[in-house]
C-alpha cells in the first residue's frame, strides 16, 4: 500500500505505547520522550492561551463601550493590552507549533527514535516554564504597561520596574527557543531513517528546519536587546536613553531585527502543517514539493533583511525606508508560491472535508487576506497613513492568529489520533471551526476599516464615529472565544471518550502514520526504510 515502505508490527497499540510506558506524574516530569514533552508543551501553551484570551476578551469588552462607565481604567487597559500581546506572542504563537506539534511529529516523521538530544529537549521545556513563570510574576508583583514591544525610553525611563521581570522572562524563554531549534536541526541532519534523503523529508520538517535556523540566529539578538533594557533600567548605562546620550531608535532596530524574523517563526511552521493537511485531505501528491520546501528557506533568509519596515515613520532616513520597502516586497513572492502550490495540490485530487481540512482551508482564506494587506503596509507611501493604526492590528491578527492558530487547531485535530490513539468528534471540530472562522472575520475585518478611518492602535478611548465598528468587533470576539471553548471540549472529550483510532485514519503517507496509534515508546518497533517521496499518492 505504501511506497514509503515500513516494517512496523501492528497490533501492539493497545498493549504498549508511549502513554502507558511508565506511569505516574513523576514519569511525565522526568520523561525524555519527545512525544510526552510535546504534550507537556500542549498543556502549558493551552493554559497560557486561555490567560491571553481572557485579556483579549477584556480588551474587546472594554472597547465596545456598552455601559456609560468604561469597563477598565486607562492603566488597567494598558496592562491588559501588554499582557495579551506578550503572552500570545512569546508564550503561545512562537512556541505553539514548533515546541508542541514539532516536538511530537518531527522525530516520527523522520523515522527517528527521538530528537538528537532528548535531555536538552526536556531542559528546554523547563527553561520555558521558568521563563513563563518569571514573566507571569510581573502580573502579580509589578505590572507592566509598555506593550509587548517595550519601546524605549518609555520602558526604561517612564514606567514600573515590572518590565525587568517580563523582559527577563522573555529572555529566559529565548533559550528554550534556541535549544529546541538546535535540537531540530541536528535531528533533521543526523537521525533520518535509512533512505530518507533531504528531498524526501516531509514539508512540515522543511518548515520546522527553516524556523529553527531563524530561532538560532535571531533569538540571541533579542536576548541581548532585552538584557540591555535591564541594564539600562537598573544601571542607567545610557544606550537607549537620549538623556544619557543614547538613541531610542536603536532599540527599535535591535528589537525588530529579532521580532520581524520572529513573525516567520510563527508562520513558517503553520505553513508546514498546512502542507501536510492539504495533501492528506486531497489524497494527492503535493504540487511543487521543491518550490514549497525552498520557499520556506527563502522566507527564512529574507526575513532577516526587512526589519526596517516597522520604522518607516520613526525618523530613519527616507532611503532606508525605501530599501526596506523593496526587500519586504520580495517576501510576497515565496508566499504567493506556497499559496499557488497548495491550491494546485487540490486540482484533480479527491478532497474530503473533515475538521483538520476545514482549518487548513480557513488558514488559506485568512492568510490570503493577511498577506494581501501586508502589501499595503510594505508600500512606504501607503504605510505612512496606516502605520500604528487598527489596519495594522487587523493585518497581523489575520496573519498570526488567522494563520498560525488555524494551522495549530488543524494540526491538533489531524495528529490527535496519533497522540492519544483516539478520534475527536468530527462534528465538534466542525462546530469549533465555524465559530472561530466566522468570529474571526467579524472581529478583525471591521478593524481594517477602522484603520483606514484613522483609529490608532493601543487606544483606551476613541472618537464616537468608531463606535459601531468596535462593537461589531467585540461581538465577533465572543464567537472566537466560544469556538475555542467548543474546541477544548471536543479535545477533552476525545482524550477520554473518543472512538479508538486506527493507525492511519486519514490514509496519509508520511512515516508517523506507519506506526501504531499511539506510537510505542521509541516510535517504531523496527526502524522504517524509506524508498520514495513523502506524499506518494499513486
Amino acid at each position, binding site marked *: 500500500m505504501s511506497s514509503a515502505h515500513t516494517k512496523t508490527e501492528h497490533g501492539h497499540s493497545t498493549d504498549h505505547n508511549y502513554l502507558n510506558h511508565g506511569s505516574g506524574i513523576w514519569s511525565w516530569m522526568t520523561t525524555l520522550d519527545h512525544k510526552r514533552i510535546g504534550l507537556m508543551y500542549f498543556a502549558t501553551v493551552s493554559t497560557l492561551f486561555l490567560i491571553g484570551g481572557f485579556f483579549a476578551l477584556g480588551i474587546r469588552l472594554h472597547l465596545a463601550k456598552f455601559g456609560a462607565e468604561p469597563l477598565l481604567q486607562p492603566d488597567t487597559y494598558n496592562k491588559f493590552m501588554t499582557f495579551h500581546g506578550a503572552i500570545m506572542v512569546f508564550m503561545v504563537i512562537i512556541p505553539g507549533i514548533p515546541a508542541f506539534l514539532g516536538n511530537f511529529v518531527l522525530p516520527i516523521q523522520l523515522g527517528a527514535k527521538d530528537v538528537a538530544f532528548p535531555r536538552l529537549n526536556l531542559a528546554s521545556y523547563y527553561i520555558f516554564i521558568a521563563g513563563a513563570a518569571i514573566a507571569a510574576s510581573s502580573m502579580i508583583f509589578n505590572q507592566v504597561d509598555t506593550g509587548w514591544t517595550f519601546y524605549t525610553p518609555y520602558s526604561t525611563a517612564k514606567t514600573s520596574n515590572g518590565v525587568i521581570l517580563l523582559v527577563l522572562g522573555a529572555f529566559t524563554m529565548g533559550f528554550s527557543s534556541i535549544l529546541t531549534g538546535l535540537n531540530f536541526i541536528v535531528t533533521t541532519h543526523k537521525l533520518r531513517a535509512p533512505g530518507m534523503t533531504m528531498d524526501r523529508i516531509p514539508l512540515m520538517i522543511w518548515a520546522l528546519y527553516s524556523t529553527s535556523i531563524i530561532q538560532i540566529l535571531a533569538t540571541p539578538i533579542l536576548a541581548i536587546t532585552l538584557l540591555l533594557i535591564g541594564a539600562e533600567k537598573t544601571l542607567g548605562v545610557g544606550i537607549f536613553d537620549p538623556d544619557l546620550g543614547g538613541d531610542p531608535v536603536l532599540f527599535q532596530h535591535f528589537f525588530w531585527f529579532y521580532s520581524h524574523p520572529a513573525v516567520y517563526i510563527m508562520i513558517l511552521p503553520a505553513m508546514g502543517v498546512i502542507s501536510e493537511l492539504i495533501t492528506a485531505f486531497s489524497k494527492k501528491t503535493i504540487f511543487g514539493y521543491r518550490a514549497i520546501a525552498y520557499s520556506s528557506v527563502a522566507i527564512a533568509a529574507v526575513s532577516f533583511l526587512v526589519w526596517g519596515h516597522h520604522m518607516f515613520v520613526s525618523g530613519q532616513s527616507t532611503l532606508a525606508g525605501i530599501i526596506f520597502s523593496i526587500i519586504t516586497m520580495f517576501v510576497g513572492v515565496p508566499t*504567493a508560491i506556497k499559496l499557488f502550490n497548495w491550491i494546485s495540490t487540490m486540482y484533480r485530487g479527491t*478532497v474530503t472535508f473533515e475538521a483538520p481540512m476545514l482549518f487548513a482551508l480557513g488558514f488559506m482564506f485568512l492568510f490570503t487576506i493577511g498577506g494581501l494587506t501586508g502589501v499595503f503596509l510594505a508600500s512606504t507611501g501607503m504605510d505612512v497613513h496606516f502605520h500604528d493604526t487598527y489596519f495594522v492590528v487587523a493585518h497581523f491578527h489575520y496573519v498570526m492568529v488567522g494563520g498560525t492558530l488555524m494551522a495549530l487547531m488543524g494540526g491538533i485535530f489531524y495528529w490527535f489520533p496519533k497522540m492519544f490513539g483516539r478520534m475527536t468528534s468530527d462534528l465538534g471540530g466542525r462546530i469549533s471551526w465555524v465559530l472561530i472562522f466566522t468570529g474571526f472575520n467579524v472581529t478583525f475585518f471591521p478593524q481594517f476599516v477602522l484603520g483606514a*478611518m484613522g483609529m490608532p492602535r493601543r487606544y483606551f478611548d476613541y472618537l464616537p464615529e468608531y463606535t459601531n465598528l468596535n462593537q461589531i468587533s467585540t461581538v465577533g470576539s465572543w464567537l472566537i472565544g466560544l469556538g475555542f471553548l467548543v474546541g477544548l471540549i471536543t479535545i477533552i472529550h476525545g482524550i477520554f471518550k473518543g472512538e479508538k483510532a486506527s493507525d492511519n485514519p486519514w490514509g496519509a503517507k508520511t512515516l508517523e502514520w506507519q506506526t501504531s496509534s499511539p506510537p510505542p515508546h521509541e516510535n517504531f518497533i523496527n526502524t522504517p526504510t524509506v524508498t520514495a517521496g513523502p506524499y506518494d499518492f499513486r
Partner: protein
Amino acid sequence: MSWSSLIPATSFMPIQATEIAKEVDLLYAFLIIASLVSFVILIGGMTWFLIKFKRTSLDQKSAYITHNNFAEFLWSFIPLIIMMGIFYWGMVIFEKLRTPPEDIAAEIHVTGEQWAWTYRYANGKEFYSSANDPMIVPAGKATKLVLTSKDVIHSFYVPAFRTKQDAVPGKLTQLWFEPKQPGEYIVFCTEYCGTKHSGMMIKIKAIPSEEYAAWYHAEKKGADSPADLGKTLFAQKACASCHSIDGSRIVGPTMKGLFGSGRKFADGSQTKADENYLRESILVSSAKIVEGYPPAMPVFQGQLSDEDVANLIEYIKSIK
C-alpha cells in the same frame, strides 16, 4: 480615472484635505482592486477545485501531478512584477511626503510630552495644546513642523493629511503638509506613550493665509522670538569668537548662509545642513568635522537645553 473614484467614496478613508491625500487614496484604490482580483483568483480557484474535486466514492483515484515548471515560473514572476510596481508607486508618494517644498509659509517647532503637544512659532508665539488652542496654520500654503519630544517617543498623525511622523527625544524630525481648504483636522498620537496615550489629541486649524498673517503678527505671546533668544545665547556662549556671521573665515565655519547649504566633511561624506545636523553639531561637534577645519569646538551636550538648541538653530537660520 473613473475606476478609482468608486473606491475612495466607499473606502472609509478620512476626508482628503491635501493633494497628497488624493494621491495616497489613488494608490489605495488600486491596492484594493488588485487585492480583490488576487483574492478571487486564489480563493475562488480554491473553492472551485474543492467543489469539482470533492471525493464521491471511496475507491476514487487522484491524478499524479508533481509539478509544472511553466505555471510555477508564471506565478512567481507575475507577483514579482506587480509588487515592484506597487513598491515604486509607494516610493514616489513617500518621497513627496518626506520632502518639504522650498517655500514654507509657516514653520512650527512641535514638542511632545506625556500627554500634550507644545507648538512654538518662529516669532515666539507658543501654545500648550488644549481644546482651546488648535495649531493655527495657513490654508493653501505649506507648513513645516520640526518635531521632538521631552520624554518618550510620540507620533504626530494627521489622518486627513495621510501623514505621520514620530517625535523622538534627543532628535529632530520633520513633517510638512499643505491643507487645501480652511478647516479643522484632528491630530492623534500614534506611538504608544503611556496611560493617556489615547487622550493626546490636538486639532490643526487651517485658516485663509491673509487671516493667518494677521493672526501671526498680532500680539506676541512670548517676549522674544526664538531667534532673538538664540542671538543672546550665541553671544553668551562666545560662539562668535570662532564663527563669523558675515561670511569671513575664522576658526570655524561661518554661520552666514549655513542653513540649507551642502556640507562636506573630513571623512569624505556629505549632507545638507538641516535642523538635525545643526543640533548634532552644536551638541557634539566632533560627530561631523567640516572639511578643512580643525576639530576645535567644545562639546555642549548637557550644557544646553533642547529649547536653547532650538533657539540657536532659529538664530542660525536667520543669518542669511
